[in-house]
């Protein structure tokens, strides 16, 4: 990065450290923080969407839809995360390639499965074998977001399902007495009121999601924990910056980062809880009403 870093083996002390901390690998490390944050920012709403759809399906009057919602939450919650991240993603990837294969190579005569190998025609590879590495990374990242969304969506669905059931029946009955339809009751009364019940459960999920991001590496996305381990491990003279095992320092750094992230989340969630309790027929809402008097 700096011209003085051209020959790191001649450097010492602070200038060595400065060059070390700005090496290309460290820049990748710093970028990976952005990868993790992006994942969180994209996955949270996506998981919420899955959760909302799952909860609505599970509450549906229509039997097949209700079954679908219940089976989704029960199944995904029951499968260990690591199994999901190892097998589901490979199956998803191969599924996409298999479908594309059927469309673009209808004349392909060889079997797709040859023993342990999965072979679609070269045109059906996703992303195509000749596309730049960045596309492979984006594709991997997209698969990661999708998988995280499905897994955390199932948990969110259960939380939202419970929250929807927790809204006092009297509130809904009053709305019905005003002549609102089912849909209107759902949209105007149920959904605005359920968040206060859902928030504790959802905040748990958010915290778990923050800590689950190292699973990204299973999907081939290099996250902060991967880089901390890679950068911290002992380096021989084959590297430009040889050093002993420094993993402890890197992981201590990560500890601070993770604690900061959870602390900021807690602050935001506390404000959100206060805001959502406002005017609610709950103990929290009642306490706020008293305090305001």
């Amino acid at each position, binding site marked *: 990065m700096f011209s003085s870093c051209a020959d790191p083996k001649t450097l010492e002390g602070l200038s060595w450290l400065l060059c070390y901390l700005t090496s290309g690998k460290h820049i990748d490390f710093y970028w990976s923080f952005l990868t993790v944050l992006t994942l969180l920012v994209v996955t949270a709403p996506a998981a919420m969407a899955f959760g909302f759809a799952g909860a609505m399906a599970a509450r549906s009057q229509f039997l097949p839809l209700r079954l679908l919602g219940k089976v989704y939450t029960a199944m995904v919650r029951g499968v260990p995360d690591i199994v999901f991240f190892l097998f589901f993603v*490979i199956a998803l990837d191969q599924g*996409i390639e298999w479908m594309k294969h059927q469309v673009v190579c209808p004349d392909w005569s060889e079997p797709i499965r040859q023993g342990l190998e999965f072979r679609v025609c070269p045109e059906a590879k996703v992303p195509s074998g000749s596309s730049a590495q960045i596309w492979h990374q984006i594709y991997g990242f997209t698969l990661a977001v999708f998988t995280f969304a499905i897994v955390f969506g199932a948990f969110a669905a259960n939380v939202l399902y419970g929250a929807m059931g927790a809204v006092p029946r009297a509130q809904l009955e009053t709305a019905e007495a005003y002549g609102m339809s089912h849909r209107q009751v759902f949209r105007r009364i149920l959904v605005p009121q359920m968040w206060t019940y859902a928030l504790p459960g959802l905040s748990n999920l958010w915290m778990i999601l923050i800590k689950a991001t190292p699973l990204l*590496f299973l999907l081939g996305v290099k996250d902060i924990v991967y880089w901390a381990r890679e950068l911290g491990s002992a380096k021989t003279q*084959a590297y430009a910056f040889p050093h002993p095992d420094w*993993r402890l320092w890197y992981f201590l750094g990560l500890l601070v980062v993770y604690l900061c992230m959870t602390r900021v989340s807690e602050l935001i969630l506390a404000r959100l809880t206060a805001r959502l309790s406002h005017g609610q027929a709950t103990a929290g809402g009642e306490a706020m009403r008293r305090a305001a008097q």
Partner: protein
Amino acid sequence: MKKLLLATALVALSGGIAAAQTVRLGTEGAYPPFNFIDDAGNVAGFERELGDELCKRAGLTCEWVTNDWDSIIPNLQSGNYDVIIAGMSITDEREKVVDFSENYVPPADSAYVGLSADADVKTGVVSAQVGTIQAGYVAESGATLLEFPTPDETVAAVRNGEAVAVFADKDFLAPYVAESNGELSFVGPDIPLGGGVGLAFRESDDELREKFNAAIKAMKAEGVLNPLIEKHFGAAAKKF
């Protein structure tokens, strides 16, 4: 129509127009001096130089990909890359699932490294990387095998006392011993293992394998492979 839409969506997803076929080289990136991620964040080491040279000779455009050692063979089979070039020893067991090229490093020695030269490698705890021929050897030697996912962790385990010794390729261990200021030392005699290091291909990829085989043969014949081995592994390394 539906099929057409699907196809369009998928083509858009795959990003980029299909140019000349690119060969993707999969490596571990954690096994210096064979392959490692250098400080600029690129794949480097003996296999980087060798791979680039082989691709040039075979007239192929190559791209480097890193992958966990643990899942390096399954990902080759599911087509995430086309070649494994990761210091992989040629063994009968691996021959059953992949096809190897001619070896580009002759059958080499493995060695034990411990904190003292008289460490008990016969019955003590010995660390090795998971899924390597060395791990298999330790498991059968009567010692207690302690496996780690990355090569570096196997050495770290000896330093912090979790294992009395580490068993790995001597070429990999030699720099660690040389730079440890006497902390680490070789234990016992070297043990020859495996049939040398080769590239691994899918069993259905004979055409690609032949291209690389021809390039390796040419490098051996022209005498350019030995200097490359010497450059990365030192003068004492075995050569062709």
